[in-house]
């Protein structure tokens, strides 16, 4: 019985994105800069996965590579068992949505209009919203609890609210995988926690896989299903408790003044 359940669970936990022997880095005139080698990561549906690592370690390069923006040095990224480089832009947009750190250009967009832009991969050539699209947009607004903001202009709301709007837009895009680049920066503790909880809730309620990079390691340990940890030596993907028991966190920062307290699950400054 329990074995059947496990099989069922593993079927449900379908891998959405996998990498095979992926080498990431940059090619420039001076030569090749390798950031990480031989990566075999897998992102499964219904999981909240955080990407952590010190500044400049190459988190952005990893995200850029697995989202198909940047070419890998070698190896492959598979999204729904299809090589990501074989996707057409529109098809990719129906399978992967992003929340970026960049500032939005000035415009008069209302929150509803901004979220509705997430429907672009499905709308006709002028972008007319069908009743079905409007249902999806309203669902996305409701899931992120910002329905009351729908009529506000996007520059009239707070940073925390705007972050929710951008997540809502990604939800409206209706993709099995959402990738966010440092969504918790610029937010205070209260809003960080509420954002983490929101993402957690979304993975549980929608069976989507959500991957995001963050520097809030304490919160990530408590709330994420899996973590991808980048250090100069290697990149490991595991559940937070395993990472703690294996002592991975003590390698995260190369500084004698920062020590990881495995019992409390947080970093301590000495």
């Amino acid at each position, binding site marked *: 019985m329990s074995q059947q359940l496990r099989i069922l669970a593993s079927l449900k936990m379908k891998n959405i994105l996998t990498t095979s022997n992926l080498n990431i880095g940059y090619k420039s005139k001076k030569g090749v800069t390798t950031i990480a080698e031989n990566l075999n990561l897998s992102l499964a549906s219904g999981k909240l996965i955080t990407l952590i690592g010190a500044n400049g370690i190459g988190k952005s390069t990893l995200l850029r590579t697995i989202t198909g923006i940047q070419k890998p040095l070698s190896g492959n990224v598979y999204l729904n068992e299809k090589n990501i480089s074989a996707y057409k*832009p529109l098809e990719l947009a129906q399978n992967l949505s992003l929340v970026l750190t960049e500032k939005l*250009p*000035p415009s*008069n967009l209302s929150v509803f209009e901004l979220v509705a832009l997430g429907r672009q991969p499905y709308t006709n050539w002028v*972008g007319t919203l069908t009743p079905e699209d409007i249902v999806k947009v309203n669902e996305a607004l409701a899931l992120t609890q910002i329905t009351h903001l729908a009529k506000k202009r996007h520059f009239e709301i707070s940073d925390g609210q705007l972050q929710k709007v951008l997540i809502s837009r990604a939800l409206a895009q209706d993709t099995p995988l959402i990738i966010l680049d440092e969504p918790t920066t610029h937010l205070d503790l209260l809003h960080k926690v509420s954002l983490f909880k929101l993402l957690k809730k979304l993975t549980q309620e929608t069976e989507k896989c959500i991957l995001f990079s963050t520097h809030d390691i304490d919160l990530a340990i408590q709330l994420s299903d899996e973590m991808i940890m980048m250090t100069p030596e290697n990149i490991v993907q595991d559940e937070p408790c395993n990472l703690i028991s294996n002592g991975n966190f003590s390698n995260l920062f190369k500084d004698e003044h920062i020590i990881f307290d495995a019992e409390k699950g947080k970093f301590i400054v000495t």
Partner: protein
Amino acid sequence: MANKKRNTILFVVLSLGLLLMFFASISLGSVTIPLKEVFTSLTGGQATKSTWEYIIINYRLPKAITAVLVGTGLSISGLLMQTLFRNPLAGPDVLGLSSGASLGVAFVILGAGFLPSFLSIIALSSYGIVLASTLGSILVLFLVLWVSQKLRDTMAILIIGLMFGSFTTSIVSVLSYFSTAEQLQKFTFWSMGNLGNLSWTNIVILTVCVGIGLLLSVKSIKSLNALLLGENYAKSMGLNFKQARLIIIFATSILSGAITAFAGPVAFIGIAVPHIAKLTFQTSNHTILFWSTLFYGSIIMLFCDIVSQMPGFDVTLPINAVTSIIGAPVVIWLLVRKRNFQ
């Protein structure tokens, strides 16, 4: 939806305004023609005086149509550029597109003397001038685009536009030093802007060019809406960015290039009109902005044309002076009034 109702009312008012302005522009001028006679001539009837009919059919009607084409074309081209460059100050004149077109025309008009006679006849034909001016504006737009890729700083793009403006002025003065008084006069008149010089053939050419530009703009509406969130978001929503950008650039170049060729470098319409549309319709949705910019552009251009005619007086002001006198304060007023300048 309160917005929908307001938009419908606004569009009705704008359509009526356009009709009114169109007839006003045909009825008003240095020669006073009774309104009844204007209608008779327009509907194909016989006016009391044959000169009145001649003035209306061969002078005022083409001029009004030109004003509509110029107004819509320049305004739409400004709207496209403001979204593409994520810069509220972008427009065909600020970015140096008009300068580029001027340079092309200057080479043709002032430099025609250097060409063998059969080539200079081709170059000086309306096709030659349109081609030169479109090529000139495309050249500048590619330059601006190249810089915007390298620098990613929108301020730099505006400075490039200004630099190109002064570069053009100096090239033109070098060319004019070597050209005849007749050529110089031709170029000076061109550069003051003129809506009334177009033959019906020219109007057909201009209509085709503006038509192509507007069709490409309509095709770009969805891309423009995606670009409201910036290039990277637009790409993540399935936009083929390079292709979309090429279409937008081609549309703006053909619009501002063809218009500048026939009507001269008309200032401020391109930058000011999209803002008036955005301000009154309170939206960034390009489906609505496209139509409202179209209406405002033609209404404002017709109005400027009426002012330049100075009804009741014997003088005509250069159209470029009128648009600048009206446009510059509008832009300043918008900047001062709106803290969040969209």
